[in-house]
Every structure is written in structure tokens, then in C-alpha cells.
């Protein structure tokens, strides 16, 4: 009796394994989603801007004080439904201002150029070419997009583990500690809000680039911020990099940030 019961259980176990293998493998395979739709295709829009690696050059000489930076920060906050929290613990910021010794801790020194010392600098996600945050993500919810080099967030996939936030050497990422909707002053209906429990950050305005527009901060900067393809030798950013001395944040870490600053 013992023996045949054991044999039955072994048989049942192997059968269960056999029956469930295919569905499990199918689940693994369905990365693309929607294979059942036939005769359809997806493509970029006609007006979409294309680049191998989007990069930004911020000419800090065009700014004099924090007031100059406000409209730039506002532009991003407005179109991306960034919530404003009283509690600084929960704050969400995609682009904001920092003093030189906070933005460039390795370069700060005791005796500095007066202008640099008191000028606030714009800081945002650097969309690194070698991003530690993407290495850290256990689900590839944050990833470096092959098509244009933007470090994107897939809010649908993020499990909210915040490993990417620990990995980012620039503090560029924010976490939704609570539902942001009650704290959004004016909602831009064309862009989704986010939900509690996911990480977010600057996305180089991927949704605007797709329809031929420059990122909101670039547009609001009145020419102080240049944006273009780092690997197009004739782009505006390459021209600026060729003719000006520029610095990047924490260069020695090897992350290869794509945001350059003319000081």
C-alpha cells in the first residue's frame, strides 16, 4: 500500500510539472505583449526627433540667480504633474537647483570664484551612458532605451524596491511615498500621474521628443540649455562641447553622464 501510494504521488508530481511547463514558458516569452494582433505594426511618428544618445549642455553663464531657474523648473513640474508636498521626506523633484558644492562635491574648494559660489545650478537625471541605476534594477523597470539612450522608467513594471535610488550617485530619483494626485496643483491631462509605490525621475521629455518638440526645460530656458545628439558631430551640443570648457557631475565614477555644464 505504501509503495503504490508513493508511486502515485511521484506520477502526479511529474504530470503536474509536465502540464505547467508550457504555460510558464509562455509567460516568460511574452515580453512583447499582444502577439495575437495580426497585420499591425508600430513605428515612430513622422515628427519624432531621433538621436543615438540625447545630451544636454547647460550654459550656466546665462543664469544670474535662482529667479532665472524658476521658470525652467516650473515648466517641467507643470507638464509632468509633479506633486508639491509639505513634508520634505516625500518630495518629488525631477529638476531642481543646488549650490555648486552640492552639485559638484568633488570640485568644491574653499576659495572659489564668487559667481560660482553663490549661483544655483540646475540638477537633474544625467541619463548616463553607463547608468548604475539600470544595473541595479531587478525587473528592468528602469532601463537605458536602445533607440535614443534615454534612461526610462517603466511605471507599470516598477516594484518599488528603491534599489535604483540607492544606486544613483546623483540623487536624481524620487519615490512616491503616497498617492501624489491630491498634491498636484494643476493637472496636465495629456500626461499620466504616477501612483504610490513607484520611483520616478526626469525622462528627457520623451513624450515631447516623440512629436518633434524640445524638452520643456530646454524650451523655457531661452537658449541657455542646448539639447541634441551627443554622437552627431554636427549637433549643437557637440559644437558647444568643442568650443567651451565643460564639466560633468562626479566624472570619476565612470557613469558617463550626458548632462554637461559650461561654467
Amino acid at each position, binding site marked *: 500500500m505504501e509503495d503504490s501510494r508513493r508511486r502515485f504521488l511521484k506520477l502526479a508530481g511529474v504530470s503536474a510539472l509536465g502540464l505547467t511547463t508550457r504555460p510558464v514558458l509562455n509567460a516568460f516569452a511574452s515580453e512583447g505583449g499582444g502577439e495575437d494582433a495580426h497585420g499591425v505594426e508600430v513605428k515612430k511618428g513622422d515628427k519624432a526627433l531621433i538621436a543615438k544618445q540625447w545630451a544636454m549642455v547647460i550654459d550656466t553663464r546665462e543664469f544670474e540667480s535662482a529667479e532665472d531657474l524658476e521658470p525652467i523648473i516650473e515648466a517641467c513640474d507643470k507638464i509632468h504633474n509633479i506633486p508639491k508636498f509639505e513634508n520634505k521626506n516625500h518630495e518629488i523633484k525631477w529638476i531642481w537647483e543646488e549650490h555648486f558644492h552640492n552639485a559638484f562635491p568633488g570640485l568644491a574648494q574653499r576659495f572659489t570664484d564668487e559667481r560660482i559660489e553663490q549661483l544655483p545650478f540646475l540638477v537633474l537625471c544625467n541619463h548616463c551612458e553607463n547608468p548604475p541605476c539600470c544595473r541595479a534594477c531587478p525587473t528592468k523597470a528602469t532601463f537605458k532605451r536602445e533607440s535614443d539612450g534615454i534612461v526610462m522608467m517603466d511605471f507599470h513594471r516598477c516594484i518599488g524596491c528603491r534599489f535604483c535610488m540607492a544606486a544613483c550617485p546623483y540623487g536624481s530619483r524620487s519615490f512616491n511615498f503616497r498617492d501624489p494626485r491630491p498634491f498636484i496643483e494643476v493637472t496636465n*491631462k495629456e500626461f499620466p500621474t504616477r501612483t504610490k509605490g513607484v520611483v520616478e525621475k526626469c525622462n528627457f521629455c520623451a513624450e515631447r521628443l516623440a512629436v518633434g518638440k524640445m524638452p520643456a526645460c530646454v524650451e523655457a530656458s531661452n537658449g541657455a540649455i542646448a539639447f541634441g545628439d551627443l554622437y552627431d558631430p554636427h549637433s549643437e551640443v557637440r559644437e558647444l562641447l568643442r568650443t567651451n570648457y565643460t564639466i560633468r557631475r562626479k566624472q570619476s565614477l565612470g557613469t558617463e553622464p550626458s548632462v554637461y555644464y559650461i561654467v
Partner: protein
Amino acid sequence: MSNKNLIIAGVVIFVAVVAFPFWFNMGKAAPAPEPELTARAKAANHGQCVMPTDFMKSDHMKLLDLWRHSVVRNGERTFVNSSGQEFNMSLSNTCLDCHSNKKEFCDRCHDYASVRPYCWDCHIENPKETE
């Protein structure tokens, strides 16, 4: 069996409890859901959605998965259906442009089937609604 009565009583109670949804709801089937199309939805595109209606009824979530994968992960935002028509792949701005009546359209079937998609936590329900 010395506990025959107890066991039979237990089995009867068990069957009654497990079959509760069936005998309690006998003859009281909820009516099939009837989602309402807006005037704009009826007029747009000769009354057809981005894909044939039958496909949308059964597989709209698969299509949305394809859309979000293409937009977010591949940076491609234009969808070309089998008739060659082009659409911008956006739940809030394309789908809800015509189907701006979530309560009379989306919610009808979702409530009936007790499905609670969390899309609406992020995607704005009615972009064109004036407050």
C-alpha cells in the same frame, strides 16, 4: 462508523455552504452589461475602434500591453492597424478621446466581471473634461 451522523451532517453543511452562490442566485442572473458609446465614438472611423470591435471586446488589454511596451520601452508611438490607419498609442489621449464616458462604457463590463484595473491610478480618466 461510530460518528456516522456527525459526518453526514458535516458533509451536508459543507455542500450547502460551498454551493451557496448557486442556489442563492438561482433565477436572479444579473443582466448582461451594456456599455454605451458616446456620439463621438459612434461617429469616429465609421463606428469602428482602432481594431475590429470583436478583437477589442476580447483583447483590448493585449493591445494596451503592446502599446505600452512600444511607447515606453521602444520609443515608438504610432500604431498602424490592419487597414493602414494610424493612431497615437495613448490610453488617455486616443482611447479616451472617443470613449470619454468611463462610467457608462468601461465600468459597465468591468463592474459586472468584478475586474478592477488599476490603470486609472495613473492614466487620467477624461482628459477632455472641463472642470
